[in-house]
């Protein structure tokens, strides 16, 4: 409750010396805020705490009593193959980070700072992979590039080129890059758009050639943003599940995430090892995030200058056609190919290569199949329940927390803000395992494991920072006087919140809600540890069906899911555009 003691209540000098009325703490305002703060603290700290605990205990979740130990760490770090595991993980995440930072920033520069034709098209193309869930991207690419039967490989062989075996470290890097490029692109656009173009013009006017200017000024100015983006890509890559499991494991390339999964699949599960690797990944992610934040913080201050600010497109002459070719290539490879692959396989009864005969077999039966399989219908229902519930809870929670951090002077609000962003630094896999451990081990009066509630808890925790990101700027835009005027008109705190903040924040709240829903629908990395028979969500069903080889149904389900998510994403975009919400 220390969070919720109002500083201003004790501030005036003439007030009686430090006497707090206990009734003040029962004020609905404080009660509501206290509950919100406690929930956030619980959500943020429990998974990490449990993870740390499990890594330091013998016999965790076992029958007998356990003791404190470092044995798990020593065993894990000295076990055979741990070196290879670390190496694979770092090469995989590092190379992915480099590849997608280069591609993403090149796209961003072409779109934001040059006169390359087809920018509008590139803008959309670069964001499509953001809508396609990672699991579907992975599925599509393994259909395209599997060494024997892959459609794209058949094409390559047709041209006399060697086939590309996706089930390798290169394959993992490639597929993951195609998926995370949009994030690098968005960060690149933000960096280039906030860079005053007179900095480059000053260089040209100083007699430096365009190439020198690009190297010495543009790239140099973008460097902190690029490093920061690269680190984020690294964290994202090292902590997600789909590619390592579906592409790495068939090629016998293990990284942290797939190692954690396999350790939990063995019997008896090796909880200690999982805990240690989880903490290892958590530390990597936290350090990376911290460095990334520091770098982007320094750039933001530096590049944006005063009044005469303008960011104009630079004429790059004939090179703009090379830029255009790059747009087209990117679109074909990263966007068109996987989506067409999904559509194609969804329309055929069994997996086969595109051909004239295959055209005669086109059918919608796979789409009908979605409704015929009882497990599938159930998983769609589960996804809806969990996504909507997570969306509502995150929106309410983020609104209350944003109110505390932006609009009050309550002690500890900075800490609360920090807690609400902690989940960003926690890899989804660690989140999933941490939550799993807690609800298996903790002496709670209720049982969440095996229910949809545990998935909702995970989704709420994972999406909370994103909800904050939409709502905090909106809250900051609302002037204090608006609330004061309501209070002066006799409205209680809760009434003022409901009748002033909620309506004014509605676009931000809706955007946060829809975004939380999108993330929940796509999420696999945490859900894979938390579902049980009967509580599968769509993304888990896709994973299962694909592992069993039911490609056509997976593809059909995927196409429907992508369409649905596109509509949600369109809604977010419309809201942010119309109401000018800035989402950082």
């Amino acid at each position, binding site marked *: 409750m220390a969070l919720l003691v109002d500083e201003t209540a004790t501030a005036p000098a003439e007030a009686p010396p430090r006497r707090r009325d206990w009734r003040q703490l029962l004020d609905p305002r404080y009660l509501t805020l206290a509950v919100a703060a406690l929930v956030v603290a619980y959500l943020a700290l429990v998974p990490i705490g449990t993870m740390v605990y499990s890594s330091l205990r013998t016999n965790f979740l076992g029958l007998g009593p356990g003791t404190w130990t470092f044995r798990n760490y020593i065993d894990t770090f000295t076990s055979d193959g741990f070196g290879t595991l670390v190496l694979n993980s770092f090469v995989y995440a590092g190379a992915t980070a480099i590849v997608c930072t280069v591609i993403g920033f090149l796209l961003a520069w072409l779109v934001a700072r040059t006169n390359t034709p087809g920018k509008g098209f590139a803008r959309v193309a670069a964001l499509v992979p953001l809508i396609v869930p990672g699991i579907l991207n992975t599925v599509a690419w393994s259909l395209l590039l599997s060494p024997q039967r892959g459609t794209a490989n058949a094409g390559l062989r047709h041209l006399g080129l060697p086939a590309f075996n996706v089930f390798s470290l290169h394959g993992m890097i490639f597929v993951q890059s195609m998926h995370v490029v949009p994030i690098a692109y968005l960060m690149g656009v933000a960096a280039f758009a906030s860079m005053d173009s007179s900095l480059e*013009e000053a*260089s040209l*006017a*100083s007699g*430096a050639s365009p190439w020198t*200017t690009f190297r010495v000024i543009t790239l140099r*100015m973008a460097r902190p943003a690029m490093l920061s983006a690269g680190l984020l890509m690294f964290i994202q890559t090292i902590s997600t599940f789909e590619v390592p499991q579906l592409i790495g494991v068939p090629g016998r390339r293990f990284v942290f995430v797939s190692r954690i999964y396999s350790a939990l699949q063995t019997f008896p599960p090796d909880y200690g090892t999982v805990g240690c690797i989880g903490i290892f990944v958590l530390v990597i992610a936290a350090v990376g995030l911290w460095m990334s934040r520091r770098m982007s913080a320094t750039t933001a201050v530096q590049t944006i200058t*005063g009044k*005469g600010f303008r960011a104009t497109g630079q*004429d790059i002459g004939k090179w703009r056609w090379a830029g255009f070719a790059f747009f087209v290539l990117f679109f074909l490879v990263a966007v068109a190919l996987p989506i067409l692959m999904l559509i194609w396989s969804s329309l055929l009864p069994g997996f086969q290569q595109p051909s004239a005969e295959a055209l005669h077999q086109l059918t919608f039966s796979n789409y009908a199949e979605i409704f015929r399989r009882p497990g599938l219908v159930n998983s769609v229902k589960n996804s809806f329940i969990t996504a909507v519930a997570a969306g509502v809870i995150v929106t309410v929670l983020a609104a209350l927390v944003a109110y505390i951090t932006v609009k009050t002077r309550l002690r500890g609000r900075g800490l609360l803000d920090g807690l609400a962003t902690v989940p960003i630094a926690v890899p989804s896999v660690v989140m999933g395992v941490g939550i799993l451990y807690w609800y298996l081990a903790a002496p709670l009066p209720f049982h969440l494991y095996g229910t949809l509630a545990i998935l909702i808890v995970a989704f709420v925790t994972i999406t909370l920072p994103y909800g904050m990101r939409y709502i905090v700027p909106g809250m900051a835009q609302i002037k204090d006087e608006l609330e004061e005027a309501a209070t002066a008109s006799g409205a209680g705190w809760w009434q003022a919140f409901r009748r002033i903040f909620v309506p004014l924040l509605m676009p931000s709240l809706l955007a946060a809600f829809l975004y939380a829903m999108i993330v929940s629908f796509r999420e696999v990395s945490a859900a894979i540890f938390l579902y049980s028979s009967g509580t599968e969500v769509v993304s888990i069903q896709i994973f299962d069906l694909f592992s069993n080889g039911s490609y056509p149904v997976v593809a059909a389900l995927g196409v429907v899911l992508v369409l649905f998510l596109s509509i949600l994403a369109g809604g977010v975009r419309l809201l942010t555009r119309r109401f000018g919400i800035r989402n950082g």
Partner: protein
Amino acid sequence: MIKLTGVVKRYRGRSVTANAVDGIDLDIPEGKLVTLLGPSGCGKTTTLRLIAGLERADSGVIEIGGQVVSDPARRIYVGPHRRPIGIVFQSYAIWPHMTVLQNVMFPLVASRPRTPKDKARPLAMAALDSVGLTEFADRPAPALSGGQQQRVALARALVRQPKVLLLDEPLSNLDKGLRGRMRDEIREVQQRLGITTVFVTHDQDEALAISDDVVVMNTGNVVERGLPQAIYTSPQDEFTARFLGLSNNLRGVVESAGRNGALVNCGKRSLLCRGLANAAPGDEVSLFMRPESFRLSRRRHSDDAWPGTVVFSIYHGDCWDYHVRVDEDVLKVRVYQEKIGLSHGDAVFLEPDADSTIVITGDRSATGSDQPAPDHAEV
């Protein structure tokens, strides 16, 4: 030194009717400081950027020092890095990842022919010295204040001794006191080096104070050009008159013209305007009067005084501003007499000062930029 002939710049996606720069002719003689003055969107910054080569003209010829640097008809376009220019931006555009000295050295080491580093350093130090920033040489650039960044930008623009110095609203980000000082400093440096300079601003005081020549621009065209004092005392164009704060505008008709001037009738009042020799009775003219050019009193001192009523008064400390209704017109009057203290509804008499009244004949204002030299409109 700089010559623009029929230069046009269109911005794509805007309505076809409004060109950013609409066929400008401009000749800037060597060693002069010429100001481009106008409201925002008048094309003054675009003109400057065309001279720098940061924008490509759609047509017309631009010459710097006798060399054609841009002529789309002949497919000539010299990039900004090959033009002998130095430029100071409104935002200064000091590269934040370099020190002050690195910023100033950059033009020397980046442009061709390259200056070796050991020679570039003393040159850059000399440039910093000329703006009084020697001791800041090794500071990181963002650590400087606005005025200091401004000086660094100036040193950087001058360090490779360009033929032309371009200044794009360099003072508008500074606070008021500093602005005047920097303005004088820029003028001092410019005159000392004798460098041809184009100065873009929307601030008339700045333009009048600093220039050899003022070019007034509006909607992508040159409206009028002349010496600062000529532009101020006898603008040839209604736009210029309004832009320079001649807030009282009356329409009138010439009643009679003679050797002493013309008698102009505006409604129930009339005024003898000297110097309007070539006017014929019946000509429609526009009269512009500065707020401070009236004599205001409670009593009628002469037959020429106009009777009016005070509708509004503002006290500024050193002067009073009154809005005086004279028949259907409301005139703004400024009086530098603290004791006068008129208030709303008081009846007063206004004596216009015929000598400082500016008369612009109707056909002149319509023809816009094709003005003869400003020497005979003064009254």
